[in-house]
């Protein structure tokens, strides 16, 4: 892959430094590789996100007003180590404890757990909510095996909004968990990603197939389907979302997020949205807000995902609050 980088092994550190600059002084760098908002509400529970680098603008691009309070940043495709989790935890904590909100990957779980143990040693209360919105990565009865993918954008937005209004960590945990419980994603990939350090594709995919449910590093999902039209693909993805254990009924209000994994052009996202909306409309599902963007990405990878977040009255109120970050901003 022809990449605009310097030393391939320094990508994570360098993109992190660039990201801090992209925030125009609204966040500051902390320790080795964490960033934290400058303007934190005093005496409030904190929201910390994080994960591996190379998927920008997530995860660390979702820090800001009405979004996360800070982020712990790992190496390319690798969860942040515990000492980085700790430095970020200390920096966002305002005496009311810290919620760790991240995607369900073994590395993230272990490193945030160890980081949380270190923070507990320092007297900081830490709770964890794990994002596992990826329908295709495990059946509903094995939800603990599901990955976190596109859904982390609406979930971070809702938890971030909650963090601006709630008074206790438990309230923040309750709302973040509700956002997770109410969010499902189905994604597909059409072209593999690559790792900057090696330039090698992380998986192979023939020209005439689509990887259904494939993860953002090439982890397999439901399997391969033949290359098809946008209309067929939109229907297929929605079918998988409807078939999952989260009921979607007439009258339900949702956030609908159409995401590109990076190399899929926005034209294609819009053509998919055009196909998807009539299907949602026909079921009486009301789209309260649409996001069409490339936020959950992987180096060079092409593919798309649909995420649906069901809004109850509480979540809808939180959704409607403004938010601002490098990766997602809403008036």
């Amino acid at each position, binding site marked *: 892959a022809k990449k605009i980088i310097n030393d391939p*092994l320094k990508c994570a550190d360098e993109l992190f430094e660039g990201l801090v600059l992209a925030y125009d002084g609204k966040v500051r760098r902390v320790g080795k590789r964490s960033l934290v908002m400058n303007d934190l509400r005093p005496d409030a529970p904190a929201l910390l996100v994080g994960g*591996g680098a190379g998927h920008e603008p997530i995860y660390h691009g979702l820090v800001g007003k009405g979004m996360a309070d800070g982020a712990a940043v*790992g*190496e*390319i*495709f*690798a*969860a*942040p*180590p*515990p*000492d*980085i989790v700790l430095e970020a935890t200390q920096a966002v904590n305002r005496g009311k404890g810290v919620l760790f909100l991240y995607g369900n*990957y*073994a*590395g993230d779980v*272990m*490193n945030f*757990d*160890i980081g949380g143990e270190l923070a507990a040693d320092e007297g900081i209360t830490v709770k964890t909510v794990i994002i596992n919105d990826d329908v295709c*990565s*495990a059946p509903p009865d094995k939800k603990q*095996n599901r*990955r976190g993918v596109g859904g982390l954008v609406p979930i971070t937005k809702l938890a971030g909004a909650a963090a601006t209004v709630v008074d206790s960590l438990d309230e923040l945990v309750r709302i973040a968990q509700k956002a997770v419980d109410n969010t499902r994603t189905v994604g597909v990939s059409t072209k593999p990603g690559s*790792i900057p*350090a*090696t330039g*090698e594709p*992380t*998986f192979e995919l023939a020209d005439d197939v689509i990887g259904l449910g494939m*993860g953002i*590093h*090439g*982890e*397999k*999902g439901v399997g391969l389907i033949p290359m098809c039209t946008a209309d067929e693909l939109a229907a297929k993805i929605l079918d998988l979302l409807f078939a999952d254990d989260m009921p979607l009924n007439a009258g339900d209000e949702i956030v609908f997020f159409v995401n590109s994994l990076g190399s899929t052009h926005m034209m294609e996202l819009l053509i998919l949205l055009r196909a998807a909306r009539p299907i949602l409309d026909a079921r009486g599902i009301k789209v309260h807000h649409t996001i069409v963007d490339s936020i959950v990405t992987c180096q060079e990878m092409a593919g798309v995902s649909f995420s649906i977040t069901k809004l109850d009255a509480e979540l809808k109120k939180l959704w409607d609050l403004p938010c601002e970050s490098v990766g997602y901003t809403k008036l």
Partner: protein
Amino acid sequence: MQLTPNQVRLMMLQVADAIIEAEPMLSQADRDLGDGDHGLGMKRGMEAVKAQLEPLEAASVEQVFVTTGTAMMTSMGGASGALFGTLFRAGGKALAASGNFDPPDLPLFFEAALEGVMKRGGAKPGDKTMIDALAPAAAKAREVTALPLAEAISAIADAAESGKEASKAMVAQFGRAKTLGEACIGFPDAGACSIVVMLNAMRSFVSCGV
């Protein structure tokens, strides 16, 4: 026969170089089943280990291993940073009382390492992880407490190698490969490969006339 703290330090430097050299193979193993970064992470970890161990005045065997584990845990991130960090930290602490790295104490090291990794990651033997190389190594260590160090380590390394080979037939239950199902049969686990590289490096260190 047993190693001095400084010899353990030199052994771990040799382990570090072996992993750094094996980076392409380890990355390829992780491309087959995961996200392709295992070799890079291990290399990064081992460079941090070298930076710590090279200037170290080794005071104890425990210190060398805990320093190794902490360097890996704080520099690597990812699943293997937490797991290999835990492995060396737990294993090293188990040698605190005896202070020795010799055949009678090797079971302490490997069993504590195994227990730490299993507790941290929740995986068990047969799940197609590094545990499938580490568990046979620990079992073998318990059997060879009466052998000379070089022979003991060699037997342990062979056990790990067999375990890594056996991992090829397994269907992954943990890590990124867990969503692959049957498709992962035929490929060895990347973490298990790292265990084998490490033990082979230990073998060649102790066999070269220590």
